[in-house]
């Protein structure tokens, strides 16, 4: 499973939604991605990939693509 596929699974599970199954998505387009779920999914991503993001990064990881990029750079 690719990093994107794993990250997608974690994000969707935390948000409690089924999709989208492909392509990028983020806080701008997903109404369920609120401030509370954002914090929860960032920590879930950190646990899944054994990475740690800085406080400054946390706010900027507002889309699947941004999250995947940050995981790869960690």
């Amino acid at each position, binding site marked *: 499973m690719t990093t994107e596929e794993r990250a997608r699974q974690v994000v969707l599970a935390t948000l409690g939604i089924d999709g989208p199954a492909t392509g990028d998505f983020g806080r701008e387009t997903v109404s369920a991605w609120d401030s*509370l779920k954002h914090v929860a999914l960032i920590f879930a991503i950190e646990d899944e990939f054994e990475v740690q993001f800085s406080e400054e990064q946390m706010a900027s990881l507002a889309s699947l693509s941004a999250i995947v990029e940050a995981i790869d750079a960690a």
Partner: protein
Amino acid sequence: MRHNLHIEGQAFRLRPVTADDGAAILALRNQPELSRFINATSADPADQRAWLERYYQREGDYYFIVEGRDGAFEGTIALYDVDAEMGTAEWGRWILRPNSLAAVESALLLYRLAFDRLRLETVYCRTVAANIAVVSFHNSCGLESCGTLAGGFERDSVQHDLIEQRLRREYWPAVEAKLAGLAAAVARRRSRSAK
């Protein structure tokens, strides 16, 4: 109303609004991306001072600055229309600077004021229906949806529906546990980032 309530959290805290906060509040409330779903705010500092003076006279209205434990300004939040007899209050004026991580803990601290200090039975909030992120936040916390107030908010001559959500005391322990867990995780992260 003038009050001296300070509510400390792990990473953030609530302190009473003072006249010295006027400029920061004005700047926050007039940011286009933050102001769409709130009452229009005059950019005139004199109007802000006058509003605060009226607020100081209003019983049952607790307005706070949300700030980091280091004093860094994050935003505002308030509990108002406190009805001690009915045990109810509304909360709002919740505006945080872009990219703030204070949302979870500021809500937690506000609820602790309402349920633990003021011993209220129900706290409710009314959010513009189009403010989907905030409506979702309240749902994610575990608040109950009470219904829609059609045309309950007007801005720029356009009427918007309001979604009313509430938290009753019987559900507060579960909500507190959820918010406190996330707030603690944010606090640990901020502590590490500060080193």
